[in-house]
């Protein structure tokens, strides 16, 4: 059986989650490997959420937030940008493939873009193969 990656999405309520809904409303098709957790703002994402997701067996993690400047909470995503950038650097220095963790700004009107990013990311993770480094074997 071919490898079906597990992808965790974490999306902010106001932009990316709404954009993902729009992708549905407009019936855009994308792979079903992504499972989205809704948070109110991308700034809610604790770096440990990401580390934990990989330990729980996620093959890839995609974070979505409002475009910088459009944050529902004004500046939340500007903090998130810095904090998640550091998270990414830590993962990479620990030895993880850089492609497994990705942050994208997707607005509520960009259903198309949400679908596109998910398609592309899923392909990328499929190519990288299963994530075994962090995963805690049961």
């Amino acid at each position: 059986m071919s490898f079906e990656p597990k992808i965790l999405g974490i999306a902010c309520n106001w932009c990316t989650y709404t954009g993902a809904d729009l992708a549905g409303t407009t019936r855009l098709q994308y792979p079903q490997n992504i499972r989205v957790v809704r948070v109110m703002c991308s700034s809610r994402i604790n770096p440990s959420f990401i580390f934990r997701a990989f330990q729980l067996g996620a093959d890839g993690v995609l974070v979505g937030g409002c475009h910088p400047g459009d944050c529902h909470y004004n500046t939340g995503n500007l903090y998130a940008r810095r904090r998640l950038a550091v998270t990414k650097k830590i993962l990479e220095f620990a030895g993880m493939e850089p492609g497994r963790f990705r942050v994208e700004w997707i607005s509520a009107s960009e259903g198309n873009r949400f679908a596109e990013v998910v398609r592309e990311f899923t392909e990328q993770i499929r190519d990288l193969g299963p994530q075994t480094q962090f995963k805690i074997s049961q």
Partner: protein
Amino acid sequence: MSRIGVFVCHCGLNIAKTVRVSELAEFAATLPDVVVAKDYKFMCSTPGQEMIAHDIKAHRLDRVIVTACSPLMHEQTFRKVLAASGLNQYLLTIVNIREQVSWVTHDIDEGTAKAKALLNGAVRRARLLAPLTSRVIDVNSDVLVVGGGIAGIQAALELANTGKKVYLVEKNSTIGGHMAQFDKTFPTLDCSACILTPKMDSVLQHKNITLLTSCEVSEVKGFVGNFDITIRQKARYVDHTRCNACLACTEKCPGKAVSEWDEGLVKRKAIYIPFPQAVPQKPVIDRDACTFFKKGKCRLCEKVCEQKAIDFEQQDTFTTVKVGAVIVATGYDLMDTRALIQYGYGKYPGVYNALEVERLFNSAGPTGGKVTLRDGKEPQAIAILHCIGSRDKNNYEHCSRVCCMYSLKFAHLFKEKTSADVYQFYIDMRAAGKGYEEFYNRIIEEDVKFIRGKGARVAQSADEPDRLVVEAEDTITGKFIRLPVDMVVLSPAIIPRGDAKDIARLFNLSTDRYGFFMERHPKLAPLSTMSEGVFIAGVCQSPKDIPDTVAQANGAAAEALTIVVKDKMELEATTAMVNPASCCACQNCVRVCPYGAPFFNEAKGVSEINEALCKGCGLCASVCPPSAIIARHFTNDQVLAEMEGLLEF
């Protein structure tokens, strides 16, 4: 142990077509703590809702999971079902298997598998949910309006007419703002005073408006619905409760100072009213110009005042008012163009800025409405220079928006009042507005000369020393123009009031790079700010004309009304709180919060959160290294549990 009910919706075929809903319900029944799991055609229909309500009672459910469309669609609907059944509404979880599952795949196996994973996550999260209660607070029914220009006047009157009590704070001794300085308004050329002074008078007369001139906001406490605003009444040295506005004092006063109202073109007395139609029409003493304050002798005003209203001992006083909402309408200043040495403002007497020219046209102005130069002569040639400091990276990048139109108005008035030749030096003519293009055409036909090229330099004429020359390129012909004129009018950049930064700090408003107040959303919330309950109107937000300002003022009044019309309001329940036992006093939360909700309690040595200000974004929780902050409804363990569930299958 919780008792969870799972309700899977078919949404007709919308879901059922690509998710095997009955299989999903059967799967749900196998998950921990799930005591009942059902599927139904339309869960949001009345029978669907009744089924949930019935099962809550029948199965003594303490958690409900609805597996249906996006929470953005029906979360509220189902929350009401829970509330009606005696269950806390925050114990509801929605699993989005329509927008994010059934509609985005054609493969029923894939759809079903993903739905199961999502549901698994939801069950794990639901077990950890806690009931939340929104705090309900009383709402102060009054409104504060800051700034007594046309925006503030309009907003105050609109609100007062609905029966709400309004405090209108103005830092000057009269209301009216810049509009009261104008003679005519574009494009209709109706008299500014004729349309404004009745409104000013209504403010004074209105039983619901408390007019606070010579006042400034000095402290803001509280939050939406419950602001405590401290207002400083600056000493006027005239007891306005006694003064009968006979103005005998202003006649006798020997003290002189430049008239701010007339843009420094003339002098006024030390005890004065700024202009004849000022509201209130009672004088104040300018301490810096008063002979008594300077030399300790004089008191002429006191001698002539029959009402005994003069009070040299008066001090600043402070009062606190309670309001539910605030409208900020603090207006604008013109950029100080002296820094642009190439235009010679402040150096050549023939160079004027736009507001000075407004005063020259005004019949109550320094020249009685005659257009004369500082030496009393009538100008023979006049150049109006657009975009001075606006649209300019070295100064202000924004377009000041009204200059094109007022420059046309000036041209018209110059033509009407003098026999001068009038030239406009412009980059682009911007006449987008009702009747504006027509006005532009009218001015062209009045034989005003339009030179398409930004004025580059103003200098003294070499041949006629009392005249000026304007240098520019006419970019249409590519010719260098050296134009002898008697008068140059600069249209300077419109910028926020010098003290806008203080106002921003007081009300916790964000500003753009130049200090204009930021709206919450440029399109969908143009009058709201990041501070709940504080609204903005007029040029303090960005340059705009009078019609737009008035429209904004009405809009801001309506926005404020939506708050103060209620007696009580519910605060956000999904706020953050600090667990003091874990707080390490790093104060990261205090540093990052866009709303200023967290604060450091020095006495206890821990951070605390003012829940009334919290909007529930969760930023503070993620920057809290010892996880001492609990972001309600999105707690660390809730999110982790959901992730665990999602990634299990």
